[in-house]
Protein backbone atom coordinates (compact mmCIF):
# COMPACT_ATOMS: atom_id res chain seq x y z
CA UNK A 1 0.00 0.00 0.00
CA UNK A 2 1.18 3.46 -0.75
CA UNK A 3 -1.22 5.31 1.49
CA UNK A 4 0.38 7.87 3.75
CA UNK A 5 -0.30 6.66 7.28
CA UNK A 6 0.85 9.72 9.17
CA UNK A 7 1.86 13.21 8.19
CA UNK A 8 3.49 16.07 10.10
CA UNK A 9 1.14 18.74 8.75
CA UNK A 10 -1.97 17.13 7.35
CA UNK A 11 -4.70 15.32 9.23
CA UNK A 12 -5.14 11.77 7.96
CA UNK A 13 -8.82 10.93 8.17
CA UNK A 14 -10.03 7.42 7.53
CA UNK A 15 -12.73 7.71 4.87
CA UNK A 16 -15.26 5.03 4.12
CA UNK A 17 -13.84 2.23 2.01
CA UNK A 18 -15.52 0.91 -1.10
CA UNK A 19 -14.75 -1.89 -3.54
CA UNK A 20 -14.06 -1.54 -7.23
CA UNK A 21 -12.70 -3.80 -9.91
CA UNK A 22 -9.54 -3.34 -11.93
CA UNK A 23 -9.30 -5.77 -14.86
CA UNK A 24 -11.69 -7.99 -12.95
CA UNK A 25 -9.62 -7.90 -9.76
CA UNK A 26 -11.38 -6.58 -6.66
CA UNK A 27 -9.57 -3.66 -5.01
CA UNK A 28 -10.26 -1.32 -2.14
CA UNK A 29 -10.62 2.43 -2.51
CA UNK A 30 -11.59 5.41 -0.38
CA UNK A 31 -14.83 7.16 -1.06
CA UNK A 32 -14.19 10.58 -2.59
CA UNK A 33 -10.92 9.79 -4.30
CA UNK A 34 -10.26 9.60 -8.00
CA UNK A 35 -9.83 6.34 -9.89
CA UNK A 36 -6.21 7.29 -10.52
CA UNK A 37 -5.49 7.89 -6.84
CA UNK A 38 -7.13 4.58 -5.94
CA UNK A 39 -5.08 2.70 -8.52
CA UNK A 40 -1.79 4.28 -7.50
CA UNK A 41 -2.62 3.58 -3.86
CA UNK A 42 -3.03 -0.06 -4.85
CA UNK A 43 0.37 -0.06 -6.51
CA UNK A 44 -0.94 0.12 -10.07
CA UNK A 45 0.96 2.54 -12.25
CA UNK A 46 0.20 1.25 -15.74
CA UNK A 47 -3.21 2.53 -16.82
CA UNK A 48 -3.13 1.37 -20.41
CA UNK A 49 -1.17 1.39 -23.61
CA UNK A 50 -0.85 3.85 -26.43
CA UNK A 51 -1.54 2.88 -29.99
CA UNK A 52 2.14 2.18 -30.41
CA UNK A 53 2.22 -0.14 -27.40
CA UNK A 54 3.85 2.27 -25.01
CA UNK A 55 2.71 1.82 -21.43
CA UNK A 56 0.73 4.77 -20.13
CA UNK A 57 0.37 6.12 -16.60
CA UNK A 58 -1.08 9.40 -15.56
CA UNK A 59 0.79 12.64 -15.64
CA UNK A 60 -1.04 15.87 -14.88
CA UNK A 61 -3.81 14.84 -12.43
CA UNK A 62 -6.11 17.63 -13.62
CA UNK A 63 -7.71 16.06 -16.67
CA UNK A 64 -5.66 17.94 -19.21
CA UNK A 65 -3.08 15.56 -20.65
CA UNK A 66 -4.96 12.45 -21.90
CA UNK A 67 -2.42 10.05 -20.40
CA UNK A 68 -4.90 8.52 -18.00
CA UNK A 69 -7.72 7.49 -20.35
CA UNK A 70 -9.31 4.21 -19.23
CA UNK A 71 -12.39 2.11 -19.88
CA UNK A 72 -14.82 2.65 -17.01
CA UNK A 73 -18.02 0.64 -16.86
CA UNK A 74 -17.62 -0.09 -20.56
CA UNK A 75 -17.15 3.54 -21.62
CA UNK A 76 -13.74 4.34 -23.08
CA UNK A 77 -11.72 7.56 -22.94
CA UNK A 78 -12.68 8.25 -19.33
CA UNK A 79 -10.19 10.55 -17.58
CA UNK A 80 -9.36 8.49 -14.55
CA UNK A 81 -7.50 11.31 -12.80
CA UNK A 82 -10.58 13.49 -12.38
CA UNK A 83 -13.29 10.83 -12.22
CA UNK A 84 -14.21 9.71 -8.74
CA UNK A 85 -14.15 6.00 -8.03
CA UNK A 86 -17.53 4.47 -7.16
CA UNK A 87 -18.58 1.31 -5.40
CA UNK A 88 -18.65 -1.63 -7.82
CA UNK A 89 -17.05 0.31 -10.66
CA UNK A 90 -15.38 -1.74 -13.40
CA UNK A 91 -12.12 -0.18 -14.48
CA UNK A 92 -10.06 -1.52 -17.35
CA UNK A 93 -6.88 -0.58 -19.15
CA UNK A 94 -7.43 1.07 -22.49
CA UNK A 95 -5.24 0.03 -25.38
CA UNK A 96 -4.91 2.66 -28.07
CA UNK A 97 -7.94 4.64 -29.08
CA UNK A 98 -11.23 4.04 -27.38
CA UNK A 99 -13.95 1.97 -28.90
CA UNK A 100 -17.52 3.01 -29.37
CA UNK A 101 -20.48 0.79 -28.71
CA UNK A 102 -24.00 1.09 -30.00
Amino acid sequence: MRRIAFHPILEIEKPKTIKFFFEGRELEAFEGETIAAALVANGIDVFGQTEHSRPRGFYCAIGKCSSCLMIVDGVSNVRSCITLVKDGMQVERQVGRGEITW
Partner: protein
Amino acid sequence: MKNEYKVAIIGGGIVGCSIAYHLAKFGENDVVVFEKDYLSSGSTGRCAGGIRQQWSSPHNVLLAMRSVSLFEKLSQETGVDIEYKQGGYLVLSYDDQEAAQFEKNVQMQRELGLDVEILTPKDVKQRYPYIDVSGVKMATFCQKDGHANPHLANFAYARAAQKLGVHIMTHTKVMAVEVLPNGFELFTNRGKIGAKILINAAGPHSREIGNMVGVDLPTESYRHQIMVTEAVKNFFNPMAISFSGNFYMRQTKHGQFIMGQGDPEEKPGINNNVTYRFEREMAEKMCAIFPFLSKLRIVRHWSGHYNMSPDAQPIIGESTSVPSFYYAIGFSGHGFMLAPAVGEALAQMIIYGRTLHVDITELNLDRFEKGVVREKNVV
Protein backbone atom coordinates in the same frame (compact mmCIF):
# COMPACT_ATOMS: atom_id res chain seq x y z
CA MET B 1 11.46 36.41 -54.23
CA LYS B 2 12.09 37.92 -57.61
CA ASN B 3 10.46 41.21 -58.59
CA GLU B 4 8.91 39.94 -61.79
CA TYR B 5 6.95 36.75 -62.48
CA LYS B 6 4.91 35.47 -65.33
CA VAL B 7 2.03 34.42 -63.08
CA ALA B 8 1.05 35.65 -59.62
CA ILE B 9 -1.56 33.76 -57.64
CA ILE B 10 -3.24 35.37 -54.64
CA GLY B 11 -4.19 32.70 -52.08
CA GLY B 12 -2.29 29.72 -50.68
CA GLY B 13 -5.38 27.59 -50.12
CA ILE B 14 -5.93 24.38 -52.00
CA VAL B 15 -7.24 26.19 -55.06
CA GLY B 16 -4.26 28.53 -55.38
CA CYS B 17 -1.80 25.72 -54.78
CA SER B 18 -3.55 23.37 -57.20
CA ILE B 19 -3.45 26.03 -59.92
CA ALA B 20 0.24 26.66 -59.21
CA TYR B 21 1.05 22.96 -59.31
CA HIS B 22 -0.82 22.36 -62.56
CA LEU B 23 0.76 25.40 -64.23
CA ALA B 24 4.19 24.06 -63.35
CA LYS B 25 3.25 20.55 -64.37
CA PHE B 26 2.24 21.83 -67.80
CA GLY B 27 5.53 23.67 -68.12
CA GLU B 28 4.98 27.14 -66.64
CA ASN B 29 6.91 27.44 -63.41
CA ASP B 30 7.58 31.17 -63.40
CA VAL B 31 4.86 31.38 -60.80
CA VAL B 32 4.54 32.95 -57.36
CA VAL B 33 1.84 32.24 -54.79
CA PHE B 34 1.09 34.92 -52.19
CA GLU B 35 -0.42 33.79 -48.94
CA LYS B 36 -1.09 36.38 -46.26
CA ASP B 37 -0.90 33.87 -43.40
CA TYR B 38 0.29 30.28 -43.56
CA LEU B 39 -0.61 27.55 -46.04
CA SER B 40 -4.14 26.22 -45.41
CA SER B 41 -4.97 29.12 -43.10
CA GLY B 42 -8.10 30.01 -45.06
CA SER B 43 -11.22 27.96 -45.72
CA THR B 44 -9.21 24.95 -46.76
CA GLY B 45 -7.69 24.30 -43.36
CA ARG B 46 -11.08 24.74 -41.76
CA CYS B 47 -13.15 22.53 -44.01
CA ALA B 48 -14.48 19.01 -43.63
CA GLY B 49 -12.55 17.48 -46.51
CA GLY B 50 -15.57 15.84 -48.12
CA ILE B 51 -15.29 14.79 -51.78
CA ARG B 52 -18.61 14.18 -53.50
CA GLN B 53 -19.75 13.63 -57.06
CA GLN B 54 -23.48 13.49 -56.41
CA TRP B 55 -24.51 16.94 -57.64
CA SER B 56 -27.74 18.28 -59.07
CA SER B 57 -26.27 19.89 -62.20
CA PRO B 58 -24.37 17.92 -64.83
CA HIS B 59 -21.32 20.19 -65.12
CA ASN B 60 -20.74 19.96 -61.37
CA VAL B 61 -20.96 16.16 -61.56
CA LEU B 62 -18.41 16.10 -64.35
CA LEU B 63 -16.05 18.49 -62.61
CA ALA B 64 -16.26 16.47 -59.40
CA MET B 65 -15.69 13.21 -61.28
CA ARG B 66 -12.56 14.66 -62.83
CA SER B 67 -11.43 15.77 -59.36
CA VAL B 68 -11.92 12.30 -57.97
CA SER B 69 -9.72 10.79 -60.66
CA LEU B 70 -7.04 13.35 -59.72
CA PHE B 71 -7.46 12.76 -55.95
CA GLU B 72 -6.99 9.05 -56.57
CA LYS B 73 -3.46 9.74 -57.84
CA LEU B 74 -2.57 12.69 -55.65
CA SER B 75 -0.70 10.94 -52.82
CA GLN B 76 1.42 9.01 -55.25
CA GLU B 77 2.00 11.97 -57.55
CA THR B 78 3.16 14.29 -54.77
CA GLY B 79 4.63 11.91 -52.21
CA VAL B 80 2.42 13.31 -49.42
CA ASP B 81 -0.17 10.93 -47.96
CA ILE B 82 -3.38 12.96 -48.06
CA GLU B 83 -5.40 10.35 -46.13
CA TYR B 84 -7.72 9.86 -49.07
CA LYS B 85 -10.49 7.37 -48.50
CA GLN B 86 -13.33 6.38 -50.79
CA GLY B 87 -15.78 5.37 -48.11
CA GLY B 88 -18.74 6.70 -50.02
CA TYR B 89 -21.20 9.54 -49.46
CA LEU B 90 -24.47 8.58 -47.87
CA VAL B 91 -26.96 11.31 -48.71
CA LEU B 92 -30.02 11.10 -46.47
CA SER B 93 -33.27 12.77 -47.43
CA TYR B 94 -35.90 13.75 -44.89
CA ASP B 95 -38.24 15.41 -47.35
CA ASP B 96 -40.58 13.89 -49.95
CA GLN B 97 -40.06 16.59 -52.53
CA GLU B 98 -36.31 16.35 -52.16
CA ALA B 99 -36.49 12.57 -52.40
CA ALA B 100 -38.35 12.84 -55.69
CA GLN B 101 -35.68 15.22 -57.00
CA PHE B 102 -32.98 12.77 -55.89
CA GLU B 103 -34.47 10.10 -58.10
CA LYS B 104 -34.11 12.40 -61.09
CA ASN B 105 -30.60 13.45 -60.08
CA VAL B 106 -29.49 9.84 -59.77
CA GLN B 107 -30.72 9.15 -63.27
CA MET B 108 -28.71 12.09 -64.61
CA GLN B 109 -25.67 11.08 -62.57
CA ARG B 110 -25.85 7.51 -63.87
CA GLU B 111 -26.08 8.79 -67.42
CA LEU B 112 -22.83 10.65 -66.85
CA GLY B 113 -21.22 7.39 -65.76
CA LEU B 114 -21.43 7.70 -61.99
CA ASP B 115 -22.29 4.57 -60.02
CA VAL B 116 -24.99 5.71 -57.56
CA GLU B 117 -27.33 3.53 -55.50
CA ILE B 118 -30.77 4.39 -54.19
CA LEU B 119 -31.38 3.07 -50.67
CA THR B 120 -34.56 2.68 -48.65
CA PRO B 121 -34.45 3.52 -44.94
CA LYS B 122 -34.36 -0.22 -44.31
CA ASP B 123 -31.32 -0.65 -46.53
CA VAL B 124 -29.61 2.13 -44.65
CA LYS B 125 -30.37 0.50 -41.30
CA GLN B 126 -29.06 -2.82 -42.53
CA ARG B 127 -25.80 -1.38 -43.76
CA TYR B 128 -25.29 1.03 -40.91
CA PRO B 129 -27.04 -0.41 -37.84
CA TYR B 130 -25.71 2.46 -35.72
CA ILE B 131 -27.68 5.10 -37.61
CA ASP B 132 -31.19 5.92 -36.40
CA VAL B 133 -33.22 6.22 -39.59
CA SER B 134 -36.31 7.82 -38.07
CA GLY B 135 -37.76 10.29 -40.55
CA VAL B 136 -35.51 9.22 -43.42
CA LYS B 137 -37.45 9.06 -46.70
CA MET B 138 -34.70 7.66 -48.86
CA ALA B 139 -30.97 7.82 -49.37
CA THR B 140 -28.47 7.77 -52.18
CA PHE B 141 -25.01 6.33 -52.00
CA CYS B 142 -21.94 6.55 -54.18
CA GLN B 143 -19.03 4.39 -53.10
CA LYS B 144 -16.49 6.42 -55.09
CA ASP B 145 -17.21 9.55 -53.06
CA GLY B 146 -15.10 10.02 -49.97
CA HIS B 147 -12.85 12.37 -48.10
CA ALA B 148 -9.26 13.45 -47.53
CA ASN B 149 -7.29 15.50 -45.04
CA PRO B 150 -7.55 19.11 -46.24
CA HIS B 151 -4.30 20.34 -44.69
CA LEU B 152 -2.32 17.49 -46.17
CA ALA B 153 -3.92 17.90 -49.59
CA ASN B 154 -3.13 21.62 -49.47
CA PHE B 155 0.47 20.88 -48.43
CA ALA B 156 0.74 18.16 -51.08
CA TYR B 157 0.01 20.62 -53.90
CA ALA B 158 2.22 23.28 -52.35
CA ARG B 159 5.24 21.01 -51.89
CA ALA B 160 4.87 19.48 -55.35
CA ALA B 161 4.60 22.94 -56.91
CA GLN B 162 7.71 24.09 -55.05
CA LYS B 163 9.63 21.07 -56.28
CA LEU B 164 8.78 22.15 -59.83
CA GLY B 165 10.13 25.65 -59.17
CA VAL B 166 7.09 27.63 -58.02
CA HIS B 167 7.77 30.26 -55.35
CA ILE B 168 5.39 30.27 -52.41
CA MET B 169 5.50 33.35 -50.24
CA THR B 170 3.67 32.86 -46.97
CA HIS B 171 2.95 35.72 -44.56
CA THR B 172 2.89 37.95 -47.62
CA LYS B 173 -0.26 39.96 -48.11
CA VAL B 174 -1.27 41.57 -51.37
CA MET B 175 -2.55 44.98 -50.35
CA ALA B 176 -3.13 46.68 -53.68
CA VAL B 177 -2.94 45.93 -57.40
CA GLU B 178 -2.21 48.32 -60.20
CA VAL B 179 -3.43 47.25 -63.61
CA LEU B 180 -0.79 48.07 -66.23
CA PRO B 181 -1.29 48.02 -70.00
CA ASN B 182 0.62 44.79 -70.18
CA GLY B 183 0.32 43.14 -66.80
CA PHE B 184 -0.03 43.93 -63.12
CA GLU B 185 1.93 45.48 -60.33
CA LEU B 186 1.27 43.99 -56.88
CA PHE B 187 1.94 45.85 -53.65
CA THR B 188 2.70 43.46 -50.80
CA ASN B 189 4.01 43.87 -47.28
CA ARG B 190 7.32 42.59 -48.68
CA GLY B 191 7.54 44.96 -51.57
CA LYS B 192 6.36 45.46 -55.16
CA ILE B 193 6.16 42.62 -57.65
CA GLY B 194 5.23 42.59 -61.30
CA ALA B 195 3.27 39.85 -63.10
CA LYS B 196 1.88 39.29 -66.56
CA ILE B 197 -1.00 37.16 -65.34
CA LEU B 198 -2.87 37.54 -62.07
CA ILE B 199 -5.03 34.82 -60.52
CA ASN B 200 -7.51 35.48 -57.74
CA ALA B 201 -7.75 32.38 -55.52
CA ALA B 202 -8.29 34.35 -52.35
CA GLY B 203 -11.22 32.29 -51.07
CA PRO B 204 -13.24 34.34 -48.59
CA HIS B 205 -11.43 37.50 -49.68
CA SER B 206 -12.13 37.08 -53.40
CA ARG B 207 -14.26 40.20 -53.63
CA GLU B 208 -11.55 42.39 -52.06
CA ILE B 209 -9.09 41.25 -54.70
CA GLY B 210 -11.67 41.96 -57.40
CA ASN B 211 -12.02 45.48 -56.04
CA MET B 212 -8.25 45.98 -56.15
CA VAL B 213 -8.30 45.17 -59.86
CA GLY B 214 -11.54 46.99 -60.53
CA VAL B 215 -13.70 43.97 -61.34
CA ASP B 216 -16.85 43.47 -59.31
CA LEU B 217 -17.03 39.84 -58.31
CA PRO B 218 -20.45 38.99 -56.87
CA THR B 219 -19.29 36.83 -54.00
CA GLU B 220 -20.06 37.09 -50.35
CA SER B 221 -18.50 35.19 -47.45
CA TYR B 222 -20.58 33.49 -44.78
CA ARG B 223 -19.26 31.94 -41.62
CA HIS B 224 -19.68 28.18 -41.25
CA GLN B 225 -18.95 26.43 -38.00
CA ILE B 226 -17.57 22.95 -37.62
CA MET B 227 -16.36 20.75 -34.80
CA VAL B 228 -14.48 17.55 -34.08
CA THR B 229 -14.56 14.86 -31.39
CA GLU B 230 -11.81 12.91 -29.74
CA ALA B 231 -10.56 9.88 -31.63
CA VAL B 232 -12.03 6.39 -31.33
CA LYS B 233 -11.35 3.23 -33.32
CA ASN B 234 -12.50 3.53 -36.91
CA PHE B 235 -15.82 1.97 -37.92
CA PHE B 236 -17.72 4.69 -39.73
CA ASN B 237 -16.80 4.62 -43.40
CA PRO B 238 -19.04 7.02 -45.31
CA MET B 239 -19.50 10.74 -45.21
CA ALA B 240 -23.09 11.09 -44.05
CA ILE B 241 -24.82 14.21 -45.29
CA SER B 242 -28.28 15.63 -45.59
CA PHE B 243 -29.46 18.82 -47.28
CA SER B 244 -32.97 18.63 -45.86
CA GLY B 245 -31.60 17.51 -42.47
CA ASN B 246 -28.86 20.17 -42.63
CA PHE B 247 -25.78 18.27 -41.46
CA TYR B 248 -22.71 16.39 -42.55
CA MET B 249 -20.40 14.08 -40.64
CA ARG B 250 -17.50 11.74 -41.25
CA GLN B 251 -14.85 9.89 -39.28
CA THR B 252 -11.29 10.89 -40.07
CA LYS B 253 -8.52 8.40 -40.67
CA HIS B 254 -7.34 9.36 -37.25
CA GLY B 255 -10.62 8.28 -35.69
CA GLN B 256 -12.19 11.65 -34.94
CA PHE B 257 -15.72 12.58 -36.00
CA ILE B 258 -15.88 15.88 -37.83
CA MET B 259 -19.26 17.51 -38.43
CA GLY B 260 -21.12 20.68 -39.21
CA GLN B 261 -24.33 22.32 -40.40
CA GLY B 262 -25.42 25.46 -42.19
CA ASP B 263 -27.02 28.40 -40.42
CA PRO B 264 -29.67 30.33 -42.34
CA GLU B 265 -29.39 33.21 -39.86
CA GLU B 266 -25.73 33.84 -40.61
CA LYS B 267 -24.95 37.34 -41.92
CA PRO B 268 -22.32 37.88 -44.60
CA GLY B 269 -18.87 39.00 -43.45
CA ILE B 270 -15.66 37.65 -42.03
CA ASN B 271 -16.14 36.30 -38.51
CA ASN B 272 -13.89 33.69 -36.97
CA ASN B 273 -15.74 33.41 -33.66
CA VAL B 274 -17.86 30.45 -32.70
CA THR B 275 -21.24 30.22 -30.98
CA TYR B 276 -22.37 27.78 -28.37
CA ARG B 277 -25.75 27.62 -30.08
CA PHE B 278 -24.07 25.65 -32.84
CA GLU B 279 -22.79 23.02 -30.40
CA ARG B 280 -26.17 22.81 -28.72
CA GLU B 281 -28.12 22.39 -31.93
CA MET B 282 -25.61 19.92 -33.31
CA ALA B 283 -25.51 17.86 -30.13
CA GLU B 284 -29.24 17.48 -30.09
CA LYS B 285 -29.65 16.73 -33.77
CA MET B 286 -26.63 14.46 -34.17
CA CYS B 287 -27.25 12.39 -31.04
CA ALA B 288 -30.74 11.60 -32.32
CA ILE B 289 -29.47 10.40 -35.69
CA PHE B 290 -26.17 8.92 -34.47
CA PRO B 291 -26.91 7.80 -30.90
CA PHE B 292 -23.39 6.42 -30.42
CA LEU B 293 -22.09 9.99 -30.31
CA SER B 294 -23.67 10.73 -26.96
CA LYS B 295 -20.77 9.38 -24.90
CA LEU B 296 -18.17 10.95 -27.16
CA ARG B 297 -16.49 14.26 -26.38
CA ILE B 298 -16.07 17.35 -28.52
CA VAL B 299 -12.47 18.51 -28.48
CA ARG B 300 -12.45 21.48 -30.82
CA HIS B 301 -14.85 23.80 -32.53
CA TRP B 302 -13.90 26.45 -35.05
CA SER B 303 -15.27 28.36 -37.98
CA GLY B 304 -14.40 29.09 -41.58
CA HIS B 305 -16.14 30.73 -44.50
CA TYR B 306 -18.11 29.70 -47.52
CA ASN B 307 -17.36 32.11 -50.31
CA MET B 308 -20.84 32.16 -51.82
CA SER B 309 -21.74 33.05 -55.38
CA PRO B 310 -25.31 33.98 -56.37
CA ASP B 311 -26.07 30.46 -57.67
CA ALA B 312 -23.94 28.53 -55.16
CA GLN B 313 -21.54 27.43 -57.88
CA PRO B 314 -17.95 28.54 -58.41
CA ILE B 315 -16.95 31.38 -60.66
CA ILE B 316 -14.00 30.38 -62.82
CA GLY B 317 -12.45 32.05 -65.81
CA GLU B 318 -10.80 35.14 -67.22
CA SER B 319 -12.21 38.63 -66.81
CA THR B 320 -13.56 40.21 -69.97
CA SER B 321 -12.94 43.74 -68.73
CA VAL B 322 -9.38 43.19 -67.41
CA PRO B 323 -7.58 40.69 -69.63
CA SER B 324 -5.14 38.27 -67.97
CA PHE B 325 -7.00 38.58 -64.66
CA TYR B 326 -8.29 35.11 -63.81
CA TYR B 327 -10.36 33.92 -60.87
CA ALA B 328 -11.33 30.65 -59.23
CA ILE B 329 -13.63 31.78 -56.48
CA GLY B 330 -17.13 31.58 -55.02
CA PHE B 331 -16.86 27.85 -54.36
CA SER B 332 -19.88 28.09 -52.06
CA GLY B 333 -18.72 25.39 -49.67
CA HIS B 334 -17.34 22.80 -52.09
CA GLY B 335 -14.03 24.16 -53.24
CA PHE B 336 -11.95 21.53 -51.58
CA MET B 337 -13.34 18.71 -53.65
CA LEU B 338 -13.25 20.71 -56.88
CA ALA B 339 -9.76 22.13 -56.44
CA PRO B 340 -7.86 19.43 -58.37
CA ALA B 341 -10.05 19.64 -61.48
CA VAL B 342 -10.37 23.43 -61.30
CA GLY B 343 -6.63 23.90 -60.88
CA GLU B 344 -6.00 21.68 -63.85
CA ALA B 345 -8.66 23.34 -66.00
CA LEU B 346 -7.53 26.89 -65.25
CA ALA B 347 -3.90 26.00 -65.88
CA GLN B 348 -4.91 24.50 -69.22
CA MET B 349 -6.89 27.61 -70.10
CA ILE B 350 -3.86 29.78 -69.39
CA ILE B 351 -1.30 27.61 -71.14
CA TYR B 352 -3.28 26.02 -73.98
CA GLY B 353 -6.06 28.57 -74.28
CA ARG B 354 -8.70 25.88 -73.61
CA THR B 355 -9.51 23.09 -71.17
CA LEU B 356 -8.70 19.51 -72.08
CA HIS B 357 -10.76 17.42 -69.67
CA VAL B 358 -13.84 19.28 -68.49
CA ASP B 359 -15.64 22.22 -69.95
CA ILE B 360 -15.92 25.05 -67.45
CA THR B 361 -17.34 27.77 -69.69
CA GLU B 362 -20.67 27.52 -67.86
CA LEU B 363 -18.92 28.70 -64.72
CA ASN B 364 -17.78 32.04 -66.11
CA LEU B 365 -18.85 35.34 -64.62
CA ASP B 366 -21.07 36.19 -67.62
CA ARG B 367 -23.61 33.57 -66.61
CA PHE B 368 -25.20 35.87 -64.06
CA GLU B 369 -26.29 38.22 -66.83
CA LYS B 370 -28.61 35.39 -67.97
CA GLY B 371 -30.18 34.79 -64.56
CA VAL B 372 -29.47 32.53 -61.62
CA VAL B 373 -30.18 28.77 -61.32
CA ARG B 374 -29.09 27.59 -57.87
CA GLU B 375 -27.28 24.35 -57.15
CA LYS B 376 -29.49 22.55 -54.64
CA ASN B 377 -27.14 19.95 -53.21
CA VAL B 378 -25.48 22.14 -50.61
CA VAL B 379 -25.43 22.17 -46.80
